[in-house]
């Protein structure tokens, strides 16, 4: 089977080079497919280009020669204007079963920067769709990419590789926030400070529908900048107590050396509120909230960076434990895929053999029955069954040998030998 992949990923290639090799826009991809088609007209192609990897899959039927690493490197070099020197050893190469396994691992997110992240499946699907739109796919790449989707689905459903979030902001919003509230659209989010971590958390909150955002900061100017960026309003630091009472979600990430909200201050804020649940993310180091503030009442849910990090680590460990199971699925599916492909290659010869032998039997039985016309229907059936059993027993060893060989690859030699031995090639 002729399948090859040339690739560079976050594991082997620096970002600077990946950026140069990336197919950043749809127009660029369309042009790439045009060039590939013109350069390698007998080959099927799929280009997968994400921020973490650039991969070119190629496949050809048995009658056409496979592509070489140099040919693909040359294409990339010319297309992107990157010298072969710069490309150096960055472009990795796999072919045959290894190329299939590589795609299955990529689609299952086993090769991702964040193990188990779900975006890669959509990216693989999208790459396949674009390739189809550009008439770059054929029977082999169709089977290959549909197989990749199936493997990815199996890994997702049969392992916990994609379960649990692994970044602090996503854990905070996705695991804790969403376990408290149904939705964030009607919640008031108060951001204290304007740190980078607060920004990332705001992104997740916005994705969940939060739109009432108030930024409180000692520097009103910085607060205004952050508020403008996220469609919120900036308030002076003096109003902090008012907003502590009104907030449903508090994201605190100041650079203060001491806690800015002690128990007494927060108790006063809770007294001024109606006792509604409040979800506090204290992302500052040192902490902005006194830890004892969590015990003021049962509706205060306070998480500091340590608690969030511990959950991330727990999720990450859980994912790592799943790698072996995921790899087993990939292995199983790779074998199945190869078997199906090789079976398709040997299928016609098996059918030919069976049909040929059956025809000989029918001819001979016809002659026999015309000679012995006193045989009744029951006796004729008995003879037919015996002859069929003999044929099956005689055909069994060569067909088994063919199946065994097909597990290792298309058995060209054996197929040819069978054709010549049994005259099926005529």
């Amino acid at each position, binding site marked *: 089977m002729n399948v090859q992949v040339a690739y560079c990923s976050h594991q082997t290639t620096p970002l600077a080079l990946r950026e140069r090799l990336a197919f950043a826009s749809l127009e660029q991809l369309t042009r790439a497919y045009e060039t590939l088609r013109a350069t390698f007209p007998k080959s099927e192609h799929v280009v997968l280009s994400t921020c973490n990897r650039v991969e070119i899959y190629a496949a050809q039927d048995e009658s056409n020669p496979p592509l070489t690493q140099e040919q693909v490197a040359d294409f990339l070099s010319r297309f992107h204007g990157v010298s072969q020197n710069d490309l150096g050893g960055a472009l990795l190469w796999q072919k045959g079963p290894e190329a299939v396994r590589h795609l299955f691992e990529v689609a299952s997110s086993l090769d991702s920067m964040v193990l188990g992240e779900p975006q890669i499946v959509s990216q693989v699907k999208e790459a396949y769709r674009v390739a189809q739109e550009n008439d770059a796919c054929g029977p082999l790449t169709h089977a290959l990419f549909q197989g990749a989707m199936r493997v990815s689905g199996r890994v997702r459903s049969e392992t916990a590789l994609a379960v649990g979030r692994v970044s602090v902001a996503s854990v905070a919003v996705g695991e804790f926030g969403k*376990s408290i509230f149904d939705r964030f659209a009607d919640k008031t989010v108060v951001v204290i400070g304007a740190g980078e971590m607060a920004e990332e958390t705001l992104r997740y909150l916005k994705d969940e529908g939060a739109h009432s955002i108030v930024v409180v900061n000692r520097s009103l100017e910085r607060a205004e900048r952050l508020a403008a960026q996220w469609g919120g309003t900036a308030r002076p630091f003096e109003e902090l107590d008012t907003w502590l009472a009104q907030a449903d979600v508090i994201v605190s990430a100041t650079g203060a050396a001491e806690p800015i909200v002690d128990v007494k201050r927060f108790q006063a804020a809770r007294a001024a509120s109606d006792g509604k*649940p409040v979800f506090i993310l204290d992302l500052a180091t040192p902490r902005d909230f006194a830890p004892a503030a969590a015990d003021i009442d049962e509706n205060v849910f306070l998480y500091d960076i340590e608690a969030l990090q511990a959950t991330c680590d727990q999720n990450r460990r859980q994912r790592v434990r799943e790698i072996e199971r995921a790899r087993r699925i990939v292995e199983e599916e790779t074998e199945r895929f190869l078997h199906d492909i090789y079976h398709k290659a040997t299928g016609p010869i098996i059918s030919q053999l069976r049909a040929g032998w059956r025809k000989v039997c029918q001819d001979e039985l016809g002659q026999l029955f015309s000679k012995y016309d006193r045989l009744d229907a029951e006796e004729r059936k008995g003879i037919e069954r015996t002859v069929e059993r003999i044929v099956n027993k005689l055909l069994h060893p060569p067909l088994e040998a063919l199946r065994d060989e097909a597990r290792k690859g298309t058995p060209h030699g054996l197929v040819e030998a069978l054709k010549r031995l049994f005259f099926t090639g005529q």
Partner: protein
Amino acid sequence: MANVHVFCFFASYVVALALEGLAVARRSTALRSLGLGFAVAGLVAHTFYLVARSSAADLPPLLSSSRDWLLVLAWLAVVFDLTLSTMLSLVGRSVPMGLFLLPVVLLLIGASDLVGGATSAAMSGATDAVRRGAEERALRSWGMLHASLLVFGIAGVIIGFLLSIMYVVQHRRLKHPHDVPITLSLPSLATLARLNWWSVIISFPLLTLGMLTGIRLVYLSRHTQGPISFSDPLVVGSGLVWLLMVGFLVWLLRSDHVGGKQVALRTIWAFGLVLVTLLGLQVLFNGHTSAPVHRSAGSADPSRAAEVEEAARQ
């Protein structure tokens, strides 16, 4: 259909519960799907069993015996489990509802084995009686209404009870993130509180209407040979349970600033007491009754209506 036994669906639910537990421990969606499959298989067998029982007794399951009535309750709990699980999975949440609901289902099926299922012999006679007169027909209709209202009301109580347990577990998980396994995914506190509130709001009127239709049954049974008494322990117990529900509802409606956890804890106590009382009364005062005996139409036992019919036949 006639070959379906209680053991078939009981065993299916046990397997479904075990798989749900394993799925949570291993975070396996495949195990969870398999567990749901067993629950569905159990539900199908459960349905066949109730239909077969109903056909044999020529009465709806709610009227044929206390045993069938408890099995209907268990059936409703499984339907709720599967419906909510499906709805949550449609919005991308995999919540192990069965882990909470299936133990109750198994308990109800177990309890059904302890209460009387022997009324079926009298049911054909009761049906004859029904065919005979308008009064008996009215008795049967009111009996059916009484039983339906109570069974849905108690299903609401069971669901509220379980939602409150889930609330407390989720609250503990959020307050102490590393005490409860992270593999246990539950609905948000807001969802649980809302569903719990609705379970109270829906089950209370159903139970109240169930009580009122029970009083009507007492009135209808006054000319029968076995008039229903208000001093029957089932009636007294049911009345007390209803008063408890009234008290709880008043507290709930008047508590504006009470935390969700407090509401959940009180729901657990109140609904737990309701369930223990109602199921306990069933087992204690009905489980060993093979002959239909009049006690009360206002009781929590819907099969009482069938017994009334039996008395009318005599």
